[in-house]
């Protein structure tokens, strides 16, 4: 049954191919013209190139160095477990493709073509690998999907961790308890029928509801932290930034139409019915498990956490992200209709760009929210490291009983001593794929 589910998710229909080709093309073209790049670290290098302090060759080398490891060691392993494409696999690639194509009219068109081909290759390649894995004598595809099992329940814990990072262990523990009570309470209620008024009772998802409450508490704590009163005439740091870089903000606004289109298409790709792109490893696993509400809430929290980072890098560089602050993914998950998702995605991108400076200045008043954003990313990373390690050990052990545990733990611990370490949270999926391949090798030599 699980295999059937995979086949449905990975089925390459022409709709998916067209959408991914278009997103690939537009993103590459925006990277080619230095309008938008996905990697937050590449954005600050773009003005160095535009203003002549860095050659295109050096920019290309830097973009490749920044992106290559992430695509191979982070984007692709997660894309394989679900299999839904983690957006990093696509857009880190288009960052490089755009810069690789020359800065000319021909280069602009070429970048669009190569970007479209890259998107198609990614989708078809992913399907081929999944098909190949499924053909092997020891089929580990269903076990591979187990890597994400702990995430599907652990994700609602991250607000407690965020509060603990920001306001201390005791408050974090309080939120953790509240989350657990919320989970139990929702579970005991089961479903709502409003006294029989609804024909189909609304089934409550305990994890989703618990997460929702925990997020409300998290943002309540974060909003309560007000900025210290500034002396007369003094400016907050973001307002200062907006002042210094006002010309660069105009550059983004001048180039808004490609960005708006890209936002609309990404929202379509992020709908549950298309399940083509996911914004992060957590919502990806939740989408794969069919939990649209959970995926929506996690995507929303992540998007809020990205406002400060994306806004400040965009303002300081005049370069935006093809997905903006990632709210377009929330739009896709909130609606299951391609047309509505497209319109909502376009509108969100348009508003993000219009309100860029305003949002940054507004954030000066709530330093707790900016700090909260940093903690959300730290907390989600930590939660993923634990969940995926445990998930990877369980999945690997289902493939190779006994040895599976040992191999994953071994790779995890040895990795910490390496000078070329794998991304820690990607070890679960990577090690499980390795164990699956090993199981097949053992089968061939007659040991399996």
């Amino acid at each position: 049954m699980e295999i059937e589910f995979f086949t449905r998710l990975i089925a390459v229909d022409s709709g998916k191919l067209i959408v991914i080709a278009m997103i690939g093309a537009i993103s590459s073209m925006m990277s080619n013209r230095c309008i938008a790049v996905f990697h937050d670290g590449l954005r600050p290098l773009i003005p160095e190139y535009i203003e002549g302090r860095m050659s295109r060759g050096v920019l290309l080398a830097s973009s490749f160095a920044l992106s290559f490891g992430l695509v191979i060691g982070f984007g692709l392993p997660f894309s394989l477990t679900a299999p839904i494409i983690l957006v990093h696999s696509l857009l880190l690639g288009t960052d490089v493709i755009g810069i690789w194509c020359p800065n000319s009219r021909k280069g602009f068109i070429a970048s669009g073509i190569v970007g479209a081909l890259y998107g198609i290759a990614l989708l078809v390649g992913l399907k081929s690998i999944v098909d190949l894995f499924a053909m092997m004598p020891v089929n580990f595809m269903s076990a591979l999907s187990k890597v994400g099992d702990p995430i599907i329940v652990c994700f609602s814990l991250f607000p407690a961790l965020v509060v603990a990072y920001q306001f201390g262990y005791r408050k974090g523990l309080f939120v953790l308890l509240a989350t657990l009570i919320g989970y139990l309470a929702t579970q005991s209620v089961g479903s709502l029928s409003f006294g029989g008024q609804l024909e189909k009772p609304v089934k409550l998802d305990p994890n989703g509801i618990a997460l929702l409450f925990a997020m409300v508490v998290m943002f309540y704590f974060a909003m309560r932290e007000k900025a210290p009163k500034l002396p007369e005439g003094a400016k907050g740091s973001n307002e200062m930034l907006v002042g210094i870089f006002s010309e660069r903000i105009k550059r983004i606004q001048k180039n808004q139409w490609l960005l708006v289109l890209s936002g609309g298409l990404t929202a379509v790709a992020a709908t549950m019915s298309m399940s083509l792109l996911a914004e992060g490893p957590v919502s990806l696993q939740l989408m794969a498990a069919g939990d649209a509400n959970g995926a929506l809430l996690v995507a929303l929290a992540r998007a809020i956490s990205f406002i400060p980072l994306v806004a400040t890098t965009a303002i300081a560089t005049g370069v935006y992200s093809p997905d903006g602050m990632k709210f377009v993914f929330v739009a896709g998950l909130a609606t299951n209709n391609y047309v509505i998702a497209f319109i909502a995605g376009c509108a969100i991108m348009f508003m993000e760009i219009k309100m860029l400076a305003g949002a940054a200045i507004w954030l000066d008043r709530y330093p707790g929210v900016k700090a909260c954003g940093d903690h959300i990313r730290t907390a989600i990373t930590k939660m993923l490291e634990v969940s995926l390690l445990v998930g990877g050990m369980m999945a690997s052990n289902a493939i190779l009983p006994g040895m599976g545990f040992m191999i994953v733990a071994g790779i995890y611990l040895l990795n910490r001593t390496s000078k070329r370490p794998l991304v820690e949270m990607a070890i679960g999926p990577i090690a499980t794929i390795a164990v699956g391949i090993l199981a097949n090798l053992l089968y061939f030599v007659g040991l399996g």
Partner: protein
Amino acid sequence: MRFVIGGQIEKTKLAETVRRLAGDKATSVEIMGDIEAAMALKTGQADYYLGACNTGGGGALAMAIAIAGADKCITLGMPGKILSDDEISASVQAGKTAFGFTGQDIDAVVPVVIAAIFQRS
């Protein structure tokens, strides 16, 4: 020697690591927002900037590059690659003052960079 901690993630751990390694030689180790930290470095209120993020070059260094200049900045560790101890020392000798790396690289990179900084001064 005055250190500022910018970047996006694991600021507390990073600051504690710097305090532990630098000891009395550090006059201050301050956690700041990435913009404030980059401003402090640019205006000379801080000597060195350290920051972490998930990629080592994104949130860790973005503001430092934009405000203090790319020539001051270097990524010491990124997913799949950590610079060798010699390369880290060489970058400090070459006058780099803002360092970025991933959260999981803190234990591998910070001791080397702090040692190199004190060797230089």
